[in-house]
Each structure stands twice: as C-alpha cells, then as structure tokens.
C-alpha cells in the first residue's frame, strides 16, 4: 500500500468564500461497518457510549510515540484505540485523561467535546517522530545530547483553524451536500487539507471540527495574503446545437461532470498521485489505521502528511491530512538523507550534491543545531 485510494468518493462543485475554496466529497454509499463517533468524549472516564447492537468502530486519534525509527522501530500508539465493540475503557483512560486535559488547556475550551477530538495528532506525531531517536551510529560530529536524547525536544508550529483568515466564515456558510462524506480545503487554490469520514452523519457532526484543526504555516500565509479565488462558474458552450430542453439538460449535466473530472485531475492530483510511506498503527477487523508520510523529495512543492483508516482493499474510509510547509519538507528531506546514509555527514553531503559545510549549515538552519558538537561547523567551513 503506497497510494491513497479514494474510489467511491467523488468531488462535487466547489463553494468559494474569498480565498477559501471548499470542495465537497460525496460517497455513493457510506462505508459499512465503520463510523466515526465523537460522543465518545462525553465522559472524561472513557465510558464509550456504544450500544450492544451498534456496530460502531470508534477511533480516538491520540497517537503518542516515544520512539519510532530509533531502536528497532519500536512504536506505540498510547491511547489510540480502534474498537469493534464497547472497549473496556481502562486501557485507554489514564492516557486520555492526562492527554485530554493538556490539550483542552491549550485550545480555547469552548466546545469541549470536539476540542478533545485531536484528529491530526497521530499524523503530526508521525512527522515529529521522524528519526526521533537521533543518530543511530555515533559518529564524531554528533553531540552527546543527540546520542542520548535523540531529537527531543522536537517541535513544529501550526495554526488553529480559527486563526486562518476566512476559514471560519467559509465553513459556516458552507452548504452540505446530502451524501457528503468529506471535504477538501483549498486556500488560494492550494490544497490545504483533506478530510474524509465513512458516513454522512459523521461528517455532519464533525464539519464544525474543521475549525479546530491544525493547519500549516503555508496555509495560513496563503489565506492571509491570497486574494479571492474564482468560483469556476458553469459555462454552457456550443449553444447553436441546443434545440430542445433535453439538449439543455444534457449540456448542464456535462458541466457538472466536467467539474468533477477536472477537479480530480488538476486540483487534487498532488494529493492522490504521489506515493506515500504508510505505517500501520493499529489493526482491527478488516480495517487498519495508518499514518503516512510523503517522500520529502525536493522539487515537489505540495506534500501532505496524514492518517487514514483503510479497508482490506486499501480504500480510504477515514482520511485527514496536513499540508507541510516548505521548511517542514526541507527538514524531512534532510533527516531522511542523514538516515539513509547512516548519519555520516560526508556521504550525506555527497548524496545531496553539496559539500559538507553546506550540509552543516542546513542542519543549523533546520533548527537541529543541538545535534552537532561545537566546532563541527568550523571544521565544515574550512
């Protein structure tokens, strides 16, 4: 599995407000056997409100990973749970209590049930934990701190949805489609986030939560500086051939279809086509919870991280993505480069096509100065 398979989901005409474009995604039929539940957070003690005959799978996206690609690839998803029946509760409650409270303080704490739904947590942890363990081979240049603690503490900044100009209004006036199961958010016509759920009712309940999500710096800048985007009004051409109402209806249908096709090919191409590095976090029945990272290749301007629940055929039932900014892509690229070459500066520099001094400069610029010993830079510059 290396691609996002959004079959069964089709794009409907976009709704534009200022620089924000929202493209509704509609499912022909809801995904059977999976629901995203948000009421699960009603009680702090984790009593999951799932009836005996209700086959909801509930997903609490609290990915918290201590060490990932460090030693032996140990990864754990504390507090992350995908359950077919009522979960016992006890195995996730301690983590959730601790976690939820911490998050609630950070966010504004008004709509507490939704605030505690931290859907991008897993994906972001995945990105933050990229080579979190630090250098696997202790070359001379790496500092003691890097060897002992790895990348810790590792931080990235993001904006909450309500800080993105215009997004709140665009989400408020958005008119949901009857079978809508997802949305693509564009700012200044750059894909900012994708959100797909298995069932229309889930989407209706979770639509406002988009305002509480995290968005990258790039998204915020585009929304802030970007002007209004065009609405792509329908145009019926070739009027000469329209002789009856049926012709007119056919032409109108063609307009609706052409939008869907053009959208998938032109606008969502960069999300759907690249291959991702998928990591399965949890497995439950025929579904699997995955998180994915992009290739971090240079020259690809649009890269997304995210998390997804896929069925056994790889079709996406739940999807949430976060668009990385340029700097974040560069950092990922750098860490991947180091890892691929056993954290050896010279070989990495060679592979990246730069000299050692430039590589050291890049490590500093990326905010990883603490990984390097003092004096390495000078040696590099010499």
């Amino acid at each position: 599995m290396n691609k996002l398979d959004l079959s069964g989901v089709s794009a409907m005409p976009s709704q534009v407000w200022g620089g924000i474009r929202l493209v509704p995604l509609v499912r022909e039929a809801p995904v059977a056997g999976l629901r995203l539940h948000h009421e699960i957070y009603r009680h702090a003690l984790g009593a999951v409100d799932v009836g005996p005959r209700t086959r909801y799978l509930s997903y609490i996206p609290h990915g918290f990973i201590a060490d990932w690609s460090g030693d032996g690839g140990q990864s754990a998803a504390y507090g992350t749970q995908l359950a077919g029946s009522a979960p016992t509760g006890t195995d996730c409650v301690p983590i959730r209590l601790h976690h939820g409270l911490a998050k609630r303080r950070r966010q504004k704490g008004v709509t507490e049930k939704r605030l505690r739904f931290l859907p991008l947590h897993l994906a972001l942890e995945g990105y933050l934990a990229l080579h979190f363990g630090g250098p696997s081979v202790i070359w001379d240049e790496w500092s003691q701190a890097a060897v002992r603690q790895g990348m810790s503490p590792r931080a990235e900044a993001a904006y909450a949805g309500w800080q993105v100009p215009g997004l709140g209004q665009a989400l408020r006036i958005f008119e949901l489609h009857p079978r809508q199961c997802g949305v693509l958010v564009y700012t200044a016509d750059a894909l900012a986030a994708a959100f797909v759920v298995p069932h229309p009712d889930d989407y209706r309940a979770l639509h406002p939560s988009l305002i509480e999500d995290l968005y990258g710096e790039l998204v915020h800048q585009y929304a802030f500086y970007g002007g209004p985007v065009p609405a792509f009004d329908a145009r019926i051409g070739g009027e000469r051939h329209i002789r009856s109402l049926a012709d007119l209806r056919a032409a109108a249908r063609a307009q609706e279809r052409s939008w869907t096709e053009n959208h998938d090919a032109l606008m969502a191409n960069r999300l759907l086509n690249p291959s991702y590095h998928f990591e399965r976090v949890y497995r439950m029945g025929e579904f699997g919870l995955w998180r994915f990272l992009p290739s971090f290749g240079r020259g690809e301007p649009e890269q997304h991280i995210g998390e997804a629940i896929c069925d056994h055929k790889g079709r996406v039932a739940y999807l949430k993505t976060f668009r990385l900014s340029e700097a974040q892509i560069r950092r990922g690229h750098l860490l991947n480069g180091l890892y691929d070459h056993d954290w050896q500066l010279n070989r990495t520099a060679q592979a990246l096509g730069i000299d050692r001094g430039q590589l050291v400069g890049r490590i500093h610029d990326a905010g990883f100065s603490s990984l390097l010993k003092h004096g390495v830079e000078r040696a590099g510059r010499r």
Partner: protein
Amino acid sequence: MTGTKESFADLIAAEDVLLFVNAAVTATGQREFHSRADHQRLSLSFLHEYVRVNYRSIYAAVLALDINDHNAVRIIVELLCTADEADPEQKRTEGRLIAARLAALPPQRVYRAFHALRSAKVNNRRTRAIQRDWLAARADLAHDAVKYRSALKTVARHTHNPLDGELGAFLFRPGKSTRYSDPRLDAYRRARYEQDAIYELPFTIAEGFAAKHGVPRARFLERIAPRMTRLERLRTQSTTGDTTGTTTDLTVMPLTRLALFVLSLPRAERHLRRAELTAALRASALRAAGPYAGSWGRVSAVLDDSYSSYGSGVKRRRPLAVALGAHFLLEALAGSYGAHWTSGGRDPLMVRPWGPSPLGSRVLDALEDSPERLVIVSDGFDNAPPGLAGEVLRVWRTRLDPERRTSIVHLNPVYDAEGFDVRRLAPSVPTAGIRDAEDLAALVEIAQFTEGRTGLPELLAYLDRRTERFLTAQKADRKADRKALQQHRQRTDQQSNQPGDQQGDQSSSRKADQGKGGR
C-alpha cells in the same frame, strides 16, 4: 450624440433607482447569512445617501412602495434632516408622503424615528408639525403613555408639546397625582402595589410589574392573554407549551408571518397539525391574492430551501419563510401550479433549511412543465455548480424561447451588501427584492423594469402612479380612522377598557393589506 448621452444617463438613473428599491425592500441592517450586520449597515447607509443626494424626489417617492419599515423610517428621518436641500414643491410632496407613511407604520417604529430626529437635533417648525399631527391622529395616547412612556415623553419634550391634562401630569410629574381618571394611567399607578391592576396594562409593561410582584409566569400569561397583541400571543404560546392553538386564530395572520410561525414549529408538530396549518396558509394566501386568485395561468416556481435560507440568528428562516409564503400564494394565484424546492422535497410544510442550492437543475425541472410564468425565489447563491442557473436561463432565453412565451422573474429576499443590490442569477432575468410574500404580485411588476427594456420615463411614471395611489389610499384610510377614532373616544368615555395597541398594530397591517388589494 447628446441623445445617446442622455439615454445613457437615464439608464444609469433607472438602474440606481431600482437598485435602491430592491435594497429598501430587503435590507434591514441586520446580520444576513453571508454578511455581518456592520457590512449591511454600511452598505445601506451609502445607498441612502447616494440616492437622496442624486435623486431626491425619487428617494421620497420610494416611501409609496412596499419597502420595509426599517428603510421607511430611515428615509423619513433623512428627508427631514436635509429639508433645506429640497425646493418648496418637493417639500410639499415629501410632507404628504411622510405623513401618509407615518400613519401606516407601527407606533414603535414611529417613536424610534422621532427619537432619531431628536438625536440629530432636527427641530424646526415643519418637523414639529409632522410629529404633532401624528400624535393627534393616535387613537389612544393614554395607552401610548403607558406602553411607550419614555418615547412619548421624549417626543413631547422635543416638540414642545405640553400634553395637557392628565397625560402631562402622568409623564412629567409622576407620583404627584393620587388618582387618574383614565383607567390605563390609573392602572399603571396602582400596579406598583396592586397585583390585579397589572392585568389591565399592555403585556410588555405588565411583564415588568409581574416580575416585581413575583407572579408565577404561567399564571401571569394565562391572565394577561386578552391584553396581548397577536404576535405576543404567538410568541408566548411556544414558551408556555400551549400547542392547542386555542388562543390564536392562525387564518387571520399575514402570510409571511404565518409562514415564519409554521417554520418555527418542530417538524413533528408540523406533521401533527398539518391540516390546520395548511388550511391557515391557504386561507392567508387566498386573502393576499385577492381578486387575482386563479388568474395567472400555468405557473412554475423554483423555491430555495438550501442551508443559506436559514438567514441568520436575527432574521431566523426569513428567506425560507418568504419561499414558503410564495409557494402558497402562487398556488392561489395560479391556474395550475408546480413547485420545485432546491432540496428536491415535495412537502412544503416540512421544509427546512438544509443542503446545497442546485438552482440550475431545478430551473430545468421547472421549465419542463412549460409554464407561462416561472418564479424563482432564492437568495441568488447558486453553488451546485455555481452559475449554472444563470447559464440555463441565458440559453433558454436566447435559443429556446426568444419570443418570451415564458415570463421569468427572480425574487430575492436577501440584500447583498457587497453588490449594493440583491444578487441576480442572470442579466436577462428580471430580479426584484422581496420582503413579504404578500407583495409578490406588485414586485413582479417592478421586476419588469430591471430587465432593462423599459426606460426611466416609464419607471418615473410608475412611481408617480404608485405615489398617487398610496396617498389616496392613505387619505381614505385616515378618513375612516378619524371616524373610528371619534367612535372610540365616545366609547372610552363610557367604559375604557380596550387594549389599544393591539388595535393599533392590527389596523396598520390591515391598512397595508387594503393598499395592496386596491392595486
């Protein structure tokens, strides 16, 4: 050369006027679904000033149209504030229009206008005379003195009107008199210490005294019921959980009010009371249709019940209520009628504001019935896909129906602050703003002007006609009112126990109805 120049100026003038009429019908300076209240107010203020400065006589003449109360008050205040810009002839017409409009406005609106005049420090002889005349025509000033106490006091003070006798004492020297001969004034005095007296007061005033005496809400509402106006009764009906509908007769309500009330009910209750509500809506629509009932031939309607028809927290479900009202009115007007809701629903009573607005395909569905008239009631935000309705209408006009067998009109209940107008679907389709579904027939008339095929002279002639009709209708009304007033005064001399405001509010809405029937 000059001819084209003139006609170009005429064209712009006609456009400006229609723009303003649309705004004056729809805009209330309140929050809408798509724009905030301050945007609405800013946009509307600009329009008022622009039209007042450039087309003053038209600005005044708009008072004769079915514009909403907010804009009527605004126009009256602005005309009085800038009276020095008008020549004597204009002043005379303005004076008549203002007096006629004030008589048709609900009293609280008029008091608000007078308050605005005071804030603007407008206090000349003409303004004072206008206010004095309005006060003199009030059926029951004692009732106003109780219900609009501070407002009346402000007006009296501003217009140097001493309000002789008890009224003056009641307003300006409270607590001095040990008893008043007018029962309302006396009830107000007694209500401070006597619980029974509060049930002789108007509802809003009694509410305060009830709270002071700690009267349980349920008991209070039960006993005050005869003193409530119709709207107050409807409003409290839902809070008290009284769903029997015994207190109010729905069939006498104006159509849009009734539609708003129906939409405020939960769907389960609408289902339970289906027969009653449908009958009331039909009766109200028939009354609004008046002599035109059944005269419109084959009619199709595209009605917007998308999410945006929710309106906003302050204008809750207004666009949807207009659509619902229009549905029943068109049903009454048409010979054969087909409705197409954007959601695809078939049951008008169960509509709710939800889903996208695929206006394009609904217009196609409606044209399929090959109607003589197509009426679209929508806020003009066409988004599934955007602009398709406009394209369909354009191609229909240019390719399929160039000889205009079908007359199409778009009625828009929402003022678009950014465009200074209501949003249009297509340039070839006449568009008019709509506030109350009852005005639909008159608005269809106005909408023909927005197509750009009729020029400024026709428009001006139309405005003149409407002005004349408005003034004569008001004059007749006032004559009737004066008679009623005399009778009322005679009656109150014998036993004065009438809840006057209820009468006042209803008489003004009745007047509006009569005005429409005459057209």
